[in-house]
């Protein structure tokens, strides 16, 4: 195996986060009844014409700037002609010779913390097709054109990726950039972010590229890794048996974990690309790019370095802080105005607001706590005005009841701290009353601890569940 070398190039299709479609005013929202969001333009009705949604240009330019690319001053839409039932006009409006984003690169961390640069050939704008739903029951195919006309940015890498792990790292990095900058919602389950992988192998040291196969429409990081690894092995096995690789399109079968031939390139379409006469060239002037550059936030890579060197946050913390640009902005604001130790700030944040948002399945833009209020809360805790165990309660109170932060803290600070002795007694009583569960715990079912925590929380207010949990474990382990 070691005598073979793998060459991979990825084409990522990323749906742009715009309210309406790229060439019509229909909504792009996911999950509506079939064809509810297909306008006359989306249906390709005779006489209809595409009108470019200016929002997509901004997103493409943002992406270009994020990957250190040259933005084309003039880019052109072209028609890609092929017949398919879910492609209403039987041509797709895309870009060929003059894509909006030309060149660029990102960096991924390779083995042993080395940095590998992956060049990006181009990124171009195009419209998505609809969906064909094949029904074996009725022996027919249904067409849903809700997705038809959703704006896509197709991001094409150079064939510089050497293995499945790197492919995943590359894809994750791009995913991180587009979601962080709100270029895309990046939802892979809904198909907002999917990829085609071009895979070939060659003898180590060989200059010429081997025959490649194209793995189509992979929509999870896990499957990208599995599909590529399967394909590498399949190709090496064939070559070692002295057989040839056929240049073809293959599909990854998620349930069986194998790739299957879809169509061979020999019967491939001649797409007869030509400039779309219904659309004007996109012309972008320097000032437009400068304006977008000014508004661009720091990218995750830069923030990561900053967080590591300035505050020594650990990777897990950094991942959370950089998972959403709104979180980054919030924390940066708190770090700026609060005197509390930075690591403590992040811990307070994660154990309160971040957990709440995750638990309640919200996004961070729905956060009701201002950075200033959050500072007041954590400073009150640090200054022992109020117990740390009240943190969540305070946050909940401000969040749901919109009570002023000062009032909430003053109210709780008048309550006495729940004394340890009292809680310990309570725990002991609970243990005595539930001998069966104690036995289960002793026999190794440590999850039963949650049962005891629940019982205690019902009886006392304003305590930190994790603290209670530790106390219970301590007492249980002592008997």
């Amino acid at each position, binding site marked *: 195996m070691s005598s073979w070398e793998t060459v991979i190039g990825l084409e990522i299709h990323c749906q742009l986060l715009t309210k309406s479609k790229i060439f019509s005013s229909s909504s792009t929202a996911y999950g509506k009844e079939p064809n509810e969001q297909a306008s006359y333009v989306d249906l390709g009705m005779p*006489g209809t014409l595409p009108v470019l949604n200016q929002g997509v240009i901004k997103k493409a330019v943002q992406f270009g700037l994020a990957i250190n690319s040259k933005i084309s001053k003039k880019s052109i839409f072209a028609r890609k*002609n092929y017949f398919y039932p879910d492609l209403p006009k039987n041509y797709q409006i895309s870009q060929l010779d003059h894509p909006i984003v030309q060149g660029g690169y990102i960096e991924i961390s390779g083995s042993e913390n080395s940095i590998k640069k992956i060049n990006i050939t181009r990124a171009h704008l195009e419209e998505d097709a609809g969906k064909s739903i094949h029904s074996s029951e009725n022996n027919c195919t249904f067409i849903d054109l809700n997705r038809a006309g959703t704006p896509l940015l197709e991001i094409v890498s150079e064939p510089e990726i050497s293995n499945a792990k790197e492919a995943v790292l590359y894809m994750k990095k791009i995913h991180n950039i587009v979601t962080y900058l709100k270029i895309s919602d990046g939802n892979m389950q809904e198909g907002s972010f999917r990829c085609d992988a071009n895979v070939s192998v060659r003898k180590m040291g060989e200059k010429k590229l081997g025959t490649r196969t194209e793995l189509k429409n992979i929509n999870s990081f896990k499957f990208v890794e599995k599909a590529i690894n399967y394909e590498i092995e399949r190709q090496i096995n064939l070559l070692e048996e002295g057989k040839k690789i056929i240049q073809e399109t293959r599909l990854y079968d998620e349930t069986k974990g194998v790739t299957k031939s879809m169509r061979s390139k020999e019967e491939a379409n001649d797409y007869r690309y*030509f400039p779309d*006469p219904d659309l004007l060239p996109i012309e972008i002037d320097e000032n437009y790019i400068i304006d977008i550059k000014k508004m661009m936030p720091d990218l995750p890579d830069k923030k990561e370095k900053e967080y590591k060197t300035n505050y020594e946050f650990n990777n897990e913390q950094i991942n959370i802080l950089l998972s959403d640009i709104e979180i980054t902005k919030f924390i940066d604001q708190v770090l700026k105005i609060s005197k509390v130790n930075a690591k403590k700030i992040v811990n307070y944040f994660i154990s309160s607001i971040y957990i709440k948002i995750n638990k309640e399945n919200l996004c961070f833009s729905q956060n009701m706590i201002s950075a200033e209020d959050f500072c007041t809360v954590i400073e009150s805790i640090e200054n022992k005005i109020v117990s740390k165990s009240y943190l969540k309660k305070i946050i909940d109170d401000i969040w749901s009841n919109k009570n002023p932060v000062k009032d909430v803290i003053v109210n709780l600070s008048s309550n006495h701290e729940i004394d340890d002795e009292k809680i310990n007694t309570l725990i002991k009583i609970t243990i005595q009353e539930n001998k069966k569960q104690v036995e289960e715990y002793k026999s190794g079912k440590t999850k039963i601890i949650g049962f005891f925590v629940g019982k205690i929380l019902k009886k006392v207010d304003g305590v930190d569940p994790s603290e209670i949990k530790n106390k219970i474990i301590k007492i249980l382990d002592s008997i």
Partner: protein
Amino acid sequence: MDIYKKSITELSELLNKKILSSVEMANYFIKRINSFDSKLNSFITVDEEHSKKQALYADSLIAKKQNTFLTGIPIAHKDLFSTKNILTTCGSKMLENYIPPFDATIVCKLNNAGMVTIGKTNMDEFAMGSSSESSYFGSVQNPWNIVKVPGGSSGGSASAVAARLTPVATGSDTGGSIRQPASFCGLTGLKPTYGSVSRYGMIAYASSLDQCGPIAKNAEDCALIFDEIKGYDHNDITSNHEVKQEKINLQISKDEVKKITIGIPKEYFSKDLDKNISDVIFQAVEIFKKLGFKFQEISLPQHNLTIPAYYIIASAEASSNLSRYDGIKFGHRCNNPKNLEDLYLRTRKEGFGREVKKRIMIGAYALSAGYYDEYYMRALKIRRLIRDNFISAFDKVDYIFAPTSPSTAFNIGEKTSNALEMYLSDIYTTPVNLAGLPAASIPVGFNDSLPVGMQIIGNYFSEEKILQIANIFQKETDWHLKIPKEFDNE
């Protein structure tokens, strides 16, 4: 009262003075269609019910004095303009059953002005043709001589206006489809600057060349319709903000006339042109000279490259534009398709006529891998040369006069077997489309009892001046008032 002879202005006066209601006027013309159109086949659809509704609405606007100049005036639309709830066939079996759910922008604008759509006119299938013989609904006859073609592709519109079955009609011009039929039928037709009028809802043939405009009895009526339909449309981003918002003023002073130099391209008056036609045009030139216009010979050297470049570009765009007719969403669908490929093949085989198939094949070939540079790219380069020819000509002269067609109306069936000869009949009109310029065709006389047309070609967005020049000529002459005998009665 000879209502059929009247111009839009005169008809509007009848309505305003309550001599006639819009309903009566619509009925009058529908009655003419019913009595005369069996000889011409100029209409595909006449919708009495719909026109009555619109006429009633027009009458209510007139009663409330909320009418415009066009309110209550009947109009016929070429059957490639989408008309909500009215069959729109594009002259093809493919759209034999297609009823659009929306109005084309120009239809919408004319409806809003209170015009009454009395019907949809016959045309070459998908506007591909110069004789209106390729229509699935049968060929159209020329009212001046019913064994002759009316020209194409807007032959139904021209035939109907020439026989006075409608006061005015819309047409579309991709390579001469307004000007050539206007010329064959003794009418005034305006092909506006590319981008002056929205293409939204007009069924596409070749998107970079298509432009719609009026076919009318005179320059004044053309101006009235053009004023209503022109302007930027947010549904068509190739429509242009540069077109003037103000209404056209047809008056031109003697002093202004004296400042105008008109170019006569020598390549257009070579031996390819029928000597008789050239004579008729030069008689008209004499009248213009008497009016004070100056003339100068000019050269458009790349003229001979026009036809190949035009047919490659138009067919290439058409091959893609017509892909959407696949039997899945609208239009014709073959019976009991065995599989997807069978559905595509049989639907398109049955739905499209010969000429359309030919152009789809030419276009697909010109765009295919290995041939793109040789054909399509080269055609685009020629297109630029042709445009540059005009631009440098307009450095020397203000307007260009040219024949509209190398011949007068030819016999039905005469050129159907010789495609090249048919294509060459567009030789004087296609360069204007390739350059995106505005041009009108006006009647300037007769040859062998058939009308002869002449083009007035202007620089970009010079529609007003072109129509002024046409109008001043029509004040001096009566060619535009001639009516074919058979149809010159109530």
